[in-house]
């Protein structure tokens, strides 16, 4: 099972690169159209960090409107394009803002930063391979992001900057399928759909590559149950992508056809929409919801599992302890993935689907909270009895656990259908998914950036700046999002350009203003991350191979690793989490270190 196929001719030619460093490649091949997984990973990382700022700016626009409705926008209000609407956020623009905020964050930040950036960078390094199985495909998977970014960009400007795709990231038809239903967003919505398709192609290329690489290219001795949790997370994510994504791509094309070619997959007959022909139809809008969520529920785990893996690695390293319950962790991750395919209906409890289906989805959704709980307990168990080092990556990883608890618990409220009848489409939902996607995933990513930065660039990031960034982000985050639970309980719906239109919501304005200030704080804190990142890339203190005294194979390679990664093929003797093992005098025991057997029976690694 564990035999690595390192003897393939392809692998050897790469090894030659590693040894004979004088094999010159031009700048373009080396840094731009590179097939080296590390360069591609870093390309993904920098792209997604910039997109994070774009998405964040859009979010601040949304927050501005919620705190100061119909008031002149600072900075952007002066721009020429906003003059027609008096420098304020119009309802069309507001709709576009939250649609594009979610779109950018999901499709251009979270998914590519996990699978694209860290998947690429870490998979070959952590399993001891010299590169991905299909390096060219890998390069293409990065460059297919650009048509997507381009199409999303066009969709911003094509209807004038103030109107764009306006059907939400969920793009429910008929709103998204009939052009006249959302007048301002005609071609913009079409480009949006095209962009989602491109992102899908990019992810699919990555997914095929990751599965092949993990199955075939592990170093000798790297059995499945010696893989770091990061690799498990990436592996399961790749499988989820491969099974779920085609459904979204197909559904996306169906909407495109509805928009451009007059098909009626999602359009029933008899509608009275501005100037549209009421006699055509025969489609079913709920079909889209089923197809969309059949992808998008697994997708929320695509946006989480790799982060869970990376956080497990970070916690063990800085607790100097083995992972608590390695196998339960692997099994619960697999259970999340499996159950993830049969819970999509929990997004449709109020949609009018058969109530018997609703009950089924309620039970399956409750059950998916179980593996999440098991994982949380194991993380706490991992810290239990550890010798903790509160480095920046560690703080972010602890925050991941702490925040994920909230996100998981709020999920239970929404999984309970009767309660969801009240809180569906309110800010409670918004709180829930920000706790899992930002509170968990993004803190995990921040941790991972600080943790693997030395491996990427051979230099350290500044720890003090990292901690300040962490504290400010953490405070800003909770100030912005914890309060959203309360808005949800007060019944404030999401996606309203002016909630205060409703008398029963008027008194929530001061709370919303507080949240906007918190969001601003959080937004500004991200400049610290960017500054620290780019400064340290060139001027950070140099570090050796293994600055954190960690066990994984990646720390066995030089920092930064050359093309081809390892000087010689690493041989793996044990699992990745043998910290504080009695077998050695150090408090860590790298996977590649050979120890001659002692008389005392060594604890099994498994």
């Amino acid at each position, binding site marked *: 099972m564990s035999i690595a196929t390192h003897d393939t001719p392809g692998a050897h030619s790469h090894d030659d690169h590693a040894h004979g460093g004088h094999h010159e490649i031009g700048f373009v091949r080396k840094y731009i159209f590179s097939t080296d997984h590390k360069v591609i990973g870093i390309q993904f990382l920098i792209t997604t960090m910039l997109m994070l700022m774009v998405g964040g700016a859009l979010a601040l626009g949304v927050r501005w409107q919620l705190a100061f409705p119909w008031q002149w926008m600072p900075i952007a209000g002066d721009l020429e394009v906003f003059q027609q609407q008096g420098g304020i956020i119009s309802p069309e623009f507001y709709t576009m803002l939250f649609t594009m905020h979610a779109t950018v964050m999901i499709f251009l930040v979270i998914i590519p930063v996990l699978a694209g950036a860290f998947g690429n960078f870490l998979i070959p390094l952590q399993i001891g391979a010299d590169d991905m199985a299909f390096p060219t495909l890998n390069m293409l998977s990065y460059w297919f992001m650009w048509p997507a970014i381009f199409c999303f960009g066009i969709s911003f400007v094509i209807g004038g900057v103030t109107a764009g795709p306006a059907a939400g990231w969920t793009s429910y038809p008929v709103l998204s399928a009939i052009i006249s239903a959302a007048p301002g967003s005609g071609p913009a919505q079409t480009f949006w759909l095209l962009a989602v398709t491109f992102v899908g192609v990019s992810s699919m290329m990555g997914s095929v590559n990751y599965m092949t690489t993990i199955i075939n290219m592990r170093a000798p001795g790297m059995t499945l149950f010696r893989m770091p949790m990061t690799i498990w997370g990436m592996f399961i994510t790749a499988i989820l992508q491969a099974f779920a994504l085609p459904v979204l791509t197909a559904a996306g094309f169906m909407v495109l056809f509805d928009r451009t070619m007059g098909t009626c997959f999602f359009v029933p007959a008899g509608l009275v929409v501005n100037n549209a022909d009421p006699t055509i139809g025969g489609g079913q809008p709920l079909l889209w919801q089923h197809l969309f969520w059949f992808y998008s529920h697994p997708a929320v785990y695509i946006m989480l599992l790799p982060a869970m893996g990376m956080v497990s690695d970070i916690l063990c390293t800085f607790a100097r302890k083995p992972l608590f319950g390695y196998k339960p962790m692997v099994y619960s991750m697999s259970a999340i993935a499996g159950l993830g395919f049969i819970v999509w209906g929990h997004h449709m409890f109020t949609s009018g689907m058969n109530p018997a289906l609703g009950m089924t989805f309620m039970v399956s959704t409750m059950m998916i909270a179980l593996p999440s709980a098991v994982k949380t307990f194991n993380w706490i168990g991992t810290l239990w009895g*550890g010798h903790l080092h509160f480095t920046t990556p560690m703080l972010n990883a602890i925050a991941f656990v702490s925040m994920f608890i909230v996100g998981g618990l709020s999920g239970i409220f929404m999984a309970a259908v009767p309660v969801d009848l009240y809180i569906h489409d309110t800010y409670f939902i918004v709180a829930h998914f920000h706790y899992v996607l930002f509170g968990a995933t993004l803190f995990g990513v921040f941790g991972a950036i600080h943790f693997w930065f030395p491996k990427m660039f051979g230099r350290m990031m500044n720890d003090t700046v990292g901690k300040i960034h962490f504290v400010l982000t953490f405070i800003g985050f909770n100030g912005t999002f914890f309060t959203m639970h309360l808005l949800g309980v007060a019944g404030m719906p999401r996606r309203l350009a002016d909630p205060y239109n409703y008398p029963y919501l008027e008194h929530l304005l001061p709370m919303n203003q507080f949240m906007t200030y918190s969001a601003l704080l959080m937004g500004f804190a991200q400049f610290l991350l960017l500054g620290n990142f780019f400064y340290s890339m060139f001027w950070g203190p140099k570090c050796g191979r293994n600055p954190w005294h960690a066990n994984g194979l990646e720390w066995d390679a030089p920092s930064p690793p050359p093309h081809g990664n390892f000087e010689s093929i690493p041989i793996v003797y044990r699992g990745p989490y043998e910290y504080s093992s009695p077998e050695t005098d150090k408090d860590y025991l790298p996977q590649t270190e050979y120890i001659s057997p002692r008389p005392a029976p060594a604890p099994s690694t498994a």
Partner: protein
Amino acid sequence: MRKFWCLFFMFWPVLAIWLCWVSPANGWWFPSIAPWELGQQIDDLFYLLLIITTVVFIGTQFALGYVLWKGSDVKPGRAWFSHGSHNLEVIWTILPAIILLFISLYQMDVLARIRVMSKFPEQASRDPIAEVTARQFEWRIRYPAPGKKLLAQPQPDDLYTVNDLHVPVGQPVMIRLRSDDVQHSFGLPHLRLMQDAVPGLVIPVWFRSNAVGKFEIVCKELCGWGHYKMQGELTVELEEDYEAYLKALQEKMNDDGYPADAENAVAQSDEE
């Protein structure tokens, strides 16, 4: 500094719980008491979940704080070399599983009473009170003429209003929910109820209010740029007020625009 981080991570759950505690007094909580029994049961379920999740929240955050506190001591020797505990895994799998299963089965009954057609109150499902048709960006309401039944096909003597739904107090009522264009959602936050209006489907929705008064109808599904202003009003009134309302509506609809005395004047001048 090490202890600072422990306190940092322990501090915020305390703050969070304090915030939830003071929220009802500040209006950051349910808008009002639900005026009917299923709405109250939904609230009860919410509170049950709140208790369960609060216990879990405190438990896990406390455990996290505890292990951080312990682990932050600078002590000689090494971390505990442990790969886990089989017994613990079994316990913390089975226990939550039972709780979660209990929660989901416990909800079924309320859900069925709200959503399953065969469990609707007889009286409500026999005579739907009105048809509510959502369209960008308003609620159109069609009542049958007083004394008649609501038919699927619009009738010439049907009564129409916009954004203004009246129902009698204390009686189960059922509406037929439709959409003319895109998807909307008929939300009654005060009654803890919502149902999407899906183009191409007619969805029955039943509810009752035991209190008279006016409640907002909220569109809760994004339906275009004007989504935020798609606001209606539910008026719950005494049976006789309700009947008077329909009568008045009918008279208004049959009115041809001439005041009655003007009409008499015309008749008189004819006689002359």
